[in-house]
């Protein structure tokens, strides 16, 4: 009796020794990495919360607390609202086109064929290429001269040359086209994974029950892809609301700021105009709107699940 209690206690002590050693090792490994990442991310995040309430025009001096003044400017000068709204509609347009086109491409690639790999490579390679390395081609293609770039093809076909950068429509068109060209690959692969993850016996059972093609899509494919769609749109919203590199390289906000977006303005206020306090306030506004959009989307998704 005493012997068993004794071994049990020894076992317990050995066990707790082991847990203590594991605990020490876990902290020893996790803390340095997490503290280092917090230093580079959490500290700037908190500093950014403060920055929005200051006036700060040059590096080297110190930010001066001015309370809500930057936010008052943000809401009273109509330009900021316009830029935020344009960020939303241009970002959402690009995201919507990307989601639909990637889904069509995924349907087209959801077949058994050896040549499929080649097509998949072709649509994916733009995504592993840097944005800064591929936009130069688009700049060359959009040359306004009649004998240059796309205009050369247009005039060869009998059309008149287009001065692309004078038209808001064309600039938005090319920004969205570039966005889709660059980002359609991963979205298509994720859709494809979802399509292939649906149990094929479901379709066979539906066919036996006499379901037509659209009924199969409605009751098997769409419910089966719900999580995939949620993932693509959720990550897409965060990306689209911060899209500025495409704008910066392809349109520079032209014509006359008609394709300018808030994220690009934040970049310019921060790194070119050194209006750092205002840039901080704009960042907070865009960050809050992005999070609201993402949460709103999640809420809609959840509500449609509950129904």
């Amino acid at each position, binding site marked *: 009796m005493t012997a068993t209690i004794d071994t049990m206690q020894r076992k317990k002590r050995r066990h707790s020794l082991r847990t203590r050693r594991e605990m020490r090792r876990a902290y020893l490994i*996790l803390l340095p990495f997490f503290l280092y990442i917090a230093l580079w991310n959490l500290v700037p995040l908190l500093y950014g919360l403060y920055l929005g309430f200051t006036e700060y025009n040059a590096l080297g001096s110190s930010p001066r607390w001015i309370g809500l003044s930057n936010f008052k400017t943000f809401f009273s000068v109509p330009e900021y609202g316009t830029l935020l709204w344009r960020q939303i509609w241009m970002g959402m347009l690009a995201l919507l086109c990307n989601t639909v086109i990637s889904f069509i491409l995924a349907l087209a690639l959801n077949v058994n064929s050896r040549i499929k790999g080649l*097509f998949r*490579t072709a649509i994916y390679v733009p995504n592993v290429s840097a944005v800064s390395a591929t936009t130069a081609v688009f700049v060359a293609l959009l040359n306004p001269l009649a004998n240059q770039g796309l205009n050369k093809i247009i005039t060869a076909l009998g059309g008149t040359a287009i001065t692309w950068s004078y038209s808001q429509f064309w600039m938005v068109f090319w920004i969205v086209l570039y966005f889709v060209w660059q980002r359609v690959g991963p979205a298509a692969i994720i859709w494809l994974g979802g399509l292939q993850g649906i149990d094929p016996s479901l379709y066979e059972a539906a066919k036996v029950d006499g379901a037509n093609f659209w009924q199969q899509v409605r009751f098997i494919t769409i419910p089966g892809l719900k999580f995939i769609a949620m993932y693509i749109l959720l990550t897409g919203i965060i990306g689209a609301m911060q899209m500025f590199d495409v704008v910066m390289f392809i349109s520079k906000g032209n014509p006359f700021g008609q394709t300018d977006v808030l994220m690009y303005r934040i970049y310019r206020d921060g790194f070119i105009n050194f209006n750092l306090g205002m840039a901080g306030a704009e960042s907070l506004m865009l960050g809050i709107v992005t999070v609201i959009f993402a949460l709103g989307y999640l809420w809609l998704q959840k509500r449609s699940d509950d129904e």
Partner: protein
Amino acid sequence: MRKPAKILSKAIWIAIMSIVSLLFAYPFLYSILGSLMLKEDFGNMGTLLPMPEVVTLKNYAYVFSVDGGIAPLLNSLQRAAWYTFITVTMSVLCGYVLARYEFRGKKFFIISIIAAQVVPSVLTLIPSYILVSRIPFMGGNNWMGQGGHGLINNKLMLYLPLGWGSLLWVFLFTQSMKSFPRAIEEAAEIDGCGFWRMMFRILLPLQGPIVAVIAINTALGNWNDWLTPFLYINNVADSTLTAWLATLTSNLQQFGDKDYPKVFAMATMAVIPPFLIFLFFQKYIIQGIASAGIKG
């Protein structure tokens, strides 16, 4: 009757997909052909694509010259290698500990990994820059972080920042440990294998595929990340290939001398390594997106 119809529909599918693929490849073809031209010839080129009358490698000679692209090229390679090393190390060690050990605060670590993934990066863009410029005792700064430019324009900025996006790979490794048999670790422990030896001799090789997913995606991501070096460094010798290309592409839209072929040669050099990695390791890249998708 059924068979010819099937062949016909397959032929149409191949035709359509070939056209789509060509459209996707068009900018690359344009860039490669353009890079083989003389600057003077670029104005009068073919209708559909730039057709070099005189093929020249002059632009590539520039990319590999000492005052041309060789420094940024090497910086790009070193930067990608460094971040791959640190991310793999972090993911394996932290991922293992989070999957296997029981300790107080474990939940906090896991939740903070997930929460970090939804913070928009716009929130840290400007404040990071200010804080980096005000690091004390660096770049002429006093102990208050004033008077100098901190780490701005310092080559260290190619290697120091670690974004919290990288924590996603820790999470991925933790998940992959769930299907890894504990018996292997227990057997190794009974044989007297220590923690670090087990990590590097047993876990790393046996978890090869997931480590490859992390390594390849990190390498590609950092090679293509032009923004960080572009913001913090503005001299060519300390910059990276993709960051310098951002400067060159921006300059193309300004008035003045435009050397498209040179930019295209540089761009082609920046695209070739990721392209080759994609060709040989697409399995891991695709698995990376797929497993990131499971999270959502």
